[in-house]
């Protein structure tokens, strides 16, 4: 697949990565000033993954970010002010102060499903989004992320297995940053590559250098195309390193210094800047303009957040139930009649051959993979 990344799109990709880093660094300062009250989970050094994977999606696709995926939110068009006010618990935040961090949803316009702190739950939830999208004829792809630690949960298995049997258009990105809080990945799994789990579910996978945004974007784009074409979910493992503590309070003294120093030399922004310079995709003036624009935008939004009030206390008592304040609407992109009686017996795309009857060795050929599946396997081959 030829890269669709033009000069302008490269500049945009750099913009989002740099915006992600500068925004999070600004939030670290706000945290030290006690203006961010709760948890702050830095994605420093992992920006290429959030930005590169989300960049491979179309506007109708869906995402559910985890805590270190602010970059993905920015790519979806969430303004920095929403992220700042969320962390600063202000009334102007997307949750009006009811929740913090990246825990917010925008189902109808940006197609963002909110994360919760219990890891892995988003995998079946986004499988459901993907199944609904297919059912409604939308041709969408659902993407979510998980860490090397979250990959140890039971619901990771349940969700990915359900996505596999449903052939749901789901892309799951495992950000293997080596550490789950204070536990190294070697104590989460005995696998060298978490992507190997895909074999157990009978789905496609890829391993990618998570600090190379061009490789991440290309791998994600191929995975999204595979899923969108109806070939089933894809598991991408992006190898990276958590450069800061689990959260701001954690100095991460347990991580060997030499490891951090080695990874510092692979910093995704430094590498991408060098790539853009080497390939003559930009010049010093372009970089200066983008950096200046980011500084302005962050400055404006920090001022907005700092000037925002806290929510009125009595808001705490409101909104437990939806009493019609929000609507539930399905966007149909296929004739509704196709799923209504008496025509509802149309074959589903993933209908199992033989109707689910046990397959004897004599007629095994009847359930062999279709030829196009072979082709797709080549297109999303592992990159190691």
């Amino acid at each position: 697949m030829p890269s669709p990344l033009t000069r302008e799109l490269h500049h945009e990709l750099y913009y989002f990565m740099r915006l992600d880093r500068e925004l999070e660094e600004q939030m670290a300062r706000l945290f030290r000033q006690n203006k961010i009250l709760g948890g702050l989970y830095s994605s420093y050094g992992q920006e290429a993954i959030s930005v590169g994977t989300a960049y491979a999606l179309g506007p109708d696709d869906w995402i559910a970010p985890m805590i270190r995926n602010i970059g993905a939110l920015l790519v979806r068009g969430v303004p920095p002010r929403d992220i700042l006010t969320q962390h600063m618990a202000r009334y102007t935040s997307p949750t009006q102060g009811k929740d913090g961090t990246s825990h917010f949803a925008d189902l109808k316009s940006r197609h963002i499903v909110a994360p919760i702190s219990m890891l892995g739950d988003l995998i079946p939830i986004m499988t459901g989004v993907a199944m609904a999208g297919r059912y409604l004829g939308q041709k969408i792809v659902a993407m979510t992320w998980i860490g090397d630690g979250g990959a140890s949960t039971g619901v990771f298995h349940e969700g990915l297995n359900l996505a596999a049997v449903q052939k749901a258009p789901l892309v799951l990105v495992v950000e293997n940053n080596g550490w789950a809080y204070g536990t190294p990945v070697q104590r989460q799994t005995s696998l060298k590559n978490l992507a190997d789990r895909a074999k157990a579910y009978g789905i496609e996978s890829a391993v990618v250098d998570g600090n190379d945004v061009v490789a991440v974007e290309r791998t994600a784009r191929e995975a999204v195309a595979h899923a969108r074409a109806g070939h089933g979910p894809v598991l991408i493992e992006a190898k990276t390193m958590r450069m800061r503590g689990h959260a701001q309070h954690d100095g991460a003294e347990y991580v060997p210094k030499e490891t951090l120093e080695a990874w510092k030399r692979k910093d995704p922004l430094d590498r991408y800047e060098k790539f853009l310079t080497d390939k003559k995709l930009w010049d010093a003036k372009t970089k200066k303009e983008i950096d200046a624009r980011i500084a302005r935008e962050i400055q404006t939004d920090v001022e907005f957040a700092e000037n925002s009030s806290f929510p009125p206390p009595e808001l705490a008592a409101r909104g437990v139930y939806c009493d019609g304040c929000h609507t539930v609407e399905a966007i149909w992109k296929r004739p509704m009649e196709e799923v209504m009686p008496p025509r509802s017996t149309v074959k589903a795309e993933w209908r199992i051959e033989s109707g689910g009857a046990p397959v004897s060795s004599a007629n095994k050929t009847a359930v062999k993979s279709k030829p196009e599946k072979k082709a797709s396997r080549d297109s999303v081959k592992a990159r190691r």
Partner: protein
Amino acid sequence: MAETTYLEAIRQALFEEMDRDPTVVLLGEDVGVYGGAFQVSKGLLERFGWERVIDTPISESAIVGAAVGMGCAGMRPVVEMQFIDFIACCFNQVTNYAAKSHYLWGAPVPIVLRGPCGGGVHGGPFHSGNPEMYFVHTPGLKVVCPATPYDAKGLLKSAIRDNNPVLFFEHKFLYRRITEDLPEDDYTVPIGKAVVRREGRDLTIITYGAMMHTSLEASGELEKEGIQAEVIDLRTLLPLDRETILASVAKTNKLLVVHEDTRTGGIAGEIAAIVTESAFEDLDGPIRRVTSLDTPVPYSPPLENYFLPNAAKVAVAARELAHY
């Protein structure tokens, strides 16, 4: 419509809602080809096809998660728990995701989780539970426990049309034991409204689910002794219908709560607190309760019969209270 069982009423509600609204789908273990462990979804696959009646892996967290995701995309999925006891396997999806989504993020979760609960059929400790109170203690959920075919059908329709996650407890003892003449036309029963099943002046018995029938049976016995019990069927445990409870206590001045759920932390405790806080002056006696024991549900018939409330136990407690 001819005499309809409680089970058939639930099946009719699913049929009619799926006929009415193409965003309604059913997913769960063995709901399609097999028709559900109790045959509640029998015939649905043939009528609505594979896209709308979805047999899933044995993965309760994934099933509920997928339903939540479908809800995010504007659909109204119904999940069958093969036995409601297995809802423990997806506790996190239900209590941390589905329940909190609207309050925190303004994202409604229009899903129904339904399944068979309750004892009396010798199902043993993992197929007879009444886990409703775990969820009554979770803001954001609605908890519905119908006692009659009419209510089962009408409440399930309301649950499917509701924008919130509704847990729908079907008492398996009632599935094929009770019948009712149901209206031909589409109707719903509102969530959050209790109903007076039997008028009385001497004491109020508040109950729900299979124990509603047990309480009515006991009331029949008490009537022979000249004791007029008023029987309130809660129908919905969350949100609780405080008005109906308080109005009845204001009339009879005595309150007995009967539930099949275990005693400690059962809804009786909450109702007792509401009544003492809001209607202490109305009471002419202590609030009493008849419940199952604070043990797991035992298997062997003599043990299970000892564990469960019955009409005789209800009558003893009601008689004592009436004469207090």
